[in-house]
């Protein structure tokens, strides 16, 4: 029995749990906007676009997380600006900016000789290395993102559901969309410590997609997704401690498990009601 509570004896592990749960919640809630807009590509793109920011921060000796944040926000605004042009669709704009940022990141990193270890941390996360400052940053930015989603709920709802209506109400649709992109960028930045840049898309998409199968309203989807996200963060980290596997991968796998269970349950229920109807 004591063995099961073993992880909670260490301060650094408690910090990791707090970070994983917070990231799980924020990612899932913000991810709902990505899922309902079918913009999984955007999440993927933004998460890789942090690379040049990290590289520049590393070269100049600045904070890696801050560098990532700046890069993600710049790319988010760039995408928003470029997709406003009529000739360029949003996914094209994302493709252009994301690959350019990634290339710049790779170019900068190739000039550094001793980068290997830190690069792995960025790509795959290292939740066990979360410092007190890291946790403060994650919780602080995370709460700000949640506050913004709460305050602008109505505006994000209309702009993501029916942008034409938002325009006829004379709202600044471009500004609201840019804000949403910046929120996604912030979410990705606080996630790279825990799940890593390569897997953050999963945390944005999977819990939201799971919740979408169970709910009728956006705020219900968000709350349900948050529960799945938090549970994935907690059990994923817990599992990684005992199975001795990468924490980011473990968290993502647990969230995928939730998705599979809910999906199968839905399929089974639908099958049954379908049969009942036919009978």
């Amino acid at each position: 029995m004591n063995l099961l509570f073993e992880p909670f004896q260490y301060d650094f592990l408690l910090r990791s749990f707090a970070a994983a749960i917070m990231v799980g919640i924020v990612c899932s809630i913000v991810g709902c906007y990505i899922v309902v807009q079918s913009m999984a590509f955007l999440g993927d793109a933004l998460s890789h676009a942090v690379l040049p920011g990290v590289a520049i921060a590393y070269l100049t000796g600045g904070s890696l997380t801050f560098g990532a944040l700046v890069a993600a926000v710049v790319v988010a605004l760039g995408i928003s600006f470029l997709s406003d042009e009529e000739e360029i669709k949003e996914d094209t704009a994302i493709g252009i900016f994301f690959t350019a940022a990634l290339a710049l990141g790779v170019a900068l990193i190739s000039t550094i000789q001793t980068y290997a270890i830190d690069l792995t941390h960025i790509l795959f996360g290292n939740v066990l290395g979360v410092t007190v400052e890291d946790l403060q940053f994650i919780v602080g930015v995370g709460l700000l993102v949640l506050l913004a989603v709460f305050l602008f709920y109505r505006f994000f709802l209309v702009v993501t559901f029916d942008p034409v209506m938002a325009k006829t109400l004379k709202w600044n649709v471009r500004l609201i969309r840019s804000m949403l992109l910046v929120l996604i960028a912030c979410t990705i930045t606080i996630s790279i410590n825990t799940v890593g840049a390569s897997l953050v898309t999963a945390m944005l998409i999977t819990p939201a997609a799971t919740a979408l199968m169970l709910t009728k309203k956006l705020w219900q989807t968000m709350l349900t997704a948050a529960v799945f996200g938090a549970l994935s963060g907690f059990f994923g980290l817990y599992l990684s401690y005992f199975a001795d596997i990468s924490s980011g991968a473990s968290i993502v796998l647990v969230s995928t498990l939730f998705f599979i269970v809910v999906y199968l349950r839905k399929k089974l229920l639908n099958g049954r009601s379908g049969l009942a109807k036919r009978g």
Partner: protein
Amino acid sequence: MISVQRAKIITTKSISRLIRIASRCSESLRRNVHVQRKSITIQHMNNDLQSTPMIHLKNACLGYRNDRELVLKNITIDFFPGDEVAVIGPNGAGKSTLFKTIVGLIPLMQGEVTVHGGRGGNHKDCVSYIPQKEAIDWNYPITVREVVMMGRFGKLSFYQKPGKKDIEIVNSAIQRMGVADLADRKIRDCSGGQQQRVFLARSLAQHPHILLMDEPFSAVDVATEQVILENLRQLREFKVTTLVATHDLGLVYENFERTLILNHRIVAYGLTKEVMTPENLQEAFGKKAVYV
């Protein structure tokens, strides 16, 4: 001919209608906080009574930036409060372009467009636009009631939550469109006709001065068609200017007072019975046009 008809309508305008307009104006007065806005509204109240146009286009050229050709050239036309207009014409004639320009979704290329005295409308939500069905993402986690409530968002300030009055208005709009039993259903689980009803319910809840509907009758059943027409008639009572694009010429002939025939220009505009002549229809649709 048009102006004679107009004059007739003005002279026969009943006192009760005047009172209704005045009370509508005072409602919009209360909404406006700034003194400057107030003076504009008063001016508009007077203008409304003199029946200045709700939508005014003068030598307007409409189209998209990338198109070499403009879709509609040198359009001059006025729509007045209470006008119920069917907009007909072949595909690509410029029906949707006209609507999008009025709403302000696409920029005006040349000329002048004024809506309720300003570009894109005098109030924040005085124009309601129901685009073609394809324009909306139907897979969104949102219920019928929530969609209709969006109609009230233009009247709420940033920190304001929908109040008792808003909920009442939403409920009555849902009732009027006959979708009350679907109110808590996900929009995705509604049929095409039901979705069309929901979107008209949202427009009703918005209390617009101008309503633009792009092909609301395509792919809906007869019952939905009748509910939509019935509610359009009621809107006319409230002096709402309604423009409806459609391909159903028979339905236009039976139900709409006025008709605008478009084909890259105004072929004809006026009373339906007068403009829907074989000559005009042939000119718009070509030789194979259906006779009404």
